[in-house]
């Protein structure tokens, strides 16, 4: 057995790498949610009567973006095993 394989078996990095992956996976939804609400604010400023409609679209897409963050959490659990 090579030294590299022995070193890999001595130190289990899975937990730490999975946590880093979870952090990276949180970046995308953060950007997505920011873009969604920026568009809602923009749209409401241009057309105030559409506020209710835009907020509905905003919350639906917010929920879908948030699913990505939850997927990061799920992958964290599978990867850190």
């Amino acid at each position: 057995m090579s030294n590299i394989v022995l070193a890999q078996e001595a130190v289990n990095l899975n937990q730490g790498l999975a946590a880093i992956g979870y952090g990276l996976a949180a970046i995308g939804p953060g950007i997505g949610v920011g873009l969604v609400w920026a568009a809602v604010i923009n749209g409401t400023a241009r057309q105030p009567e559409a506020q209710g409609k835009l907020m509905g679209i905003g919350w639906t897409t917010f929920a879908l973006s948030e699913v990505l963050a939850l997927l990061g959490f799920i992958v964290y659990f599978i990867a850190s095993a």
Partner: protein
Amino acid sequence: MSENAQTETNPHAESVRKLASAMLRYALWPSVATATVAVLVSTLLTGTSGLFSSLIGVGVALVSSLATLALMRKTAAMNPMMVMAVAMGGLVGKLLALLGIAAALGSLSWLHREALALSMLAVVLVWAGAEALAFRKTKIPTIIPDGR
């Protein structure tokens, strides 16, 4: 409708609350059914550890999804800038809570990680799909103010 009556009822807030109710109505029972199936399958395949792991996963998914709808109801009457701040704060809070849960569960030896992760995945996907369906089916009016 007079200006006073409009500020009292706030039709925009009403339409957001209506959408939140529709989302809850569409998503709750399919998600509960999915959760039940996920818990049963986990228990059958992996035993008691699978049962508890799956329950944790399903619980986290349901609480997380319900929190978004609660946030939606609470902020319905706010202006979009405040809603953005609250939504971003909610996302950050949720991510921190999930990190805390991950740290707390990380050291448990009996935890069946795949059962937890896959049960959570199933519930989250069904909930998100049902929410999207509710959005498609709910009619949200464009409010034309007086004097136009």
